[in-house]
């Protein structure tokens, strides 16, 4: 199972095994990682699962889609070059070892 590491705004790290095909958001929420709120459950409707993708993985993860792009523009924490909504990143073998920093403000 691919591993994903979450870094809290205060620096605390959590590494989890993701189910292939589960999103970075789902993996966090089901295991109780703080800071990923994800109220809409992954419908790309709330922008409360905002993460900054580590530079090393930015190209593999890719750019946000149009809808996600607009959501990120209005996210509670200002967006950064590698900002993504973690509900839109599906885990797979290529993303094994992925590192994301959780945006400090979600709502």
């Amino acid at each position, binding site marked *: 199972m691919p591993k994903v590491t979450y870094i809290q705004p205060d620096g605390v790290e959590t590494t989890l095994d993701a189910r292939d095909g589960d999103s970075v958001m789902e993996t966090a929420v089901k*295991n*109780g990682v703080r800071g990923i709120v994800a109220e809409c459950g992954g*419908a790309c409707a709330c922008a409360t699962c905002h993460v900054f993708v580590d530079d090393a993985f930015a190209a593999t993860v890719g750019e946000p889609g149009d*809808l996600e792009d*607009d*959501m990120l523009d*209005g996210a*509670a924490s200002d967006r950064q070059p590698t900002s993504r909504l973690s509900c839109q990143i599906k885990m797979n073998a290529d993303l094994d070892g992925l590192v994301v920093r959780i945006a400090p403000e979600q709502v």
Partner: protein
Amino acid sequence: MTDVLIVGAGQAGMQIAVSLRDNGFDGRIELVGEEPHGPYQRPPLSKAFLHGAADIESLELRSPSFYVDNKIVMVSDEKVITIDLSGERGLAVTDTGREIHFDRLALATGSTPRRLPIEGVDLDGVLYLRGIADAVDLKNRWEAAASVVVIGGGFIGLEVAAGARMDGKQVTVLEAADRLIARAVSPETSEFYRAAHERRGTSVRLDAKISRIVGDGSKVTGVELEGGEVVPADIVMVGIGVIARGELAEQLGLETVNGAIVVNEFAETSNPRVIAAGDAVLLPHPLGGEAQVRLESVQNAVDQAKTAAKTLSGVREPYRAVPWFWSDQGDLKLQIAGLSTGYDQTVVRGTPDDESFSVLYYRAGRLIAIDSVNAVSDYMAVRKALGSGSTIPAELAHNLETPLKTLVVE
């Protein structure tokens, strides 16, 4: 040590438990739900789940091990029948005869679909949609059904109608009122949805007067309108709203209105030993003012549950939040922020016929809410503005050349 019993294991009940632990609460937490599943997401049941894009495991709000790790006693498939608060400690009894002793009680009992009081509702194929069991039933009948009649042009009904139409079924929506989603959106948004569903081949019948549901033997075959016309149906989906589940609250003598449990801004019921959150409650408007509202949404379940958990933890912080909501109907993404109740002016931004537009709602010149259809930037700008108590001048809001977020003023 304080022991908390949470009755109802939906989004709100689960969030109360999770937030209690987040707040450092170290007493016993028991979460009891009558469904045979742990807490799960309901919104996909009328969308992704129906089309196979989500399975039951993917709907889980937390993994089973999360409850164990956080010392939350999660009990499924058991229903609390009676509660007694007369003693020093409370006592609940479930349908298995089990007794649960507790100090503080949280009611997150949710809501149940309003039943249609007409002839024929017991026919096989007349369905409601609230829980996983309902969704599985609907899904099992889905493929074989050529025609679907949806009774009730609200969010649930329109989401199911959109999905059925995408899957090539003959779809008719019967709405008793003179417009769709009348309780939640403006006439402009209602009219857009009528036209958009019609453009996709769904027949939308407003002012529909249903006389009965008809069948062949025990199986549904159609819906008969006043005047005798029968709209054929292999499935009849009834989505005419929900009723708050206030039975236990009433048993305890708590203040209720039409079954909804009345709470204050701290999520306390009329008995301060009992807090309540989610679909089942009637609460003060979360952006202030005198009005009391019922909010049937994930956002409210989550945010109000957090307030309730704070109250239980001894932190008194009033509930303040921008209500928001979404409804995905096929490729139409509706996002609502704020509550439009009591508006006296609307501004339409964009052209509804382009299927990307917003309706901004104003009261006494101040922005109070927005409906956005495929217009995410507008929605996000307004959600943020309402959260900071800001507004957007009505006379400028229609101009598509200017992003709404640049128009936000105090």
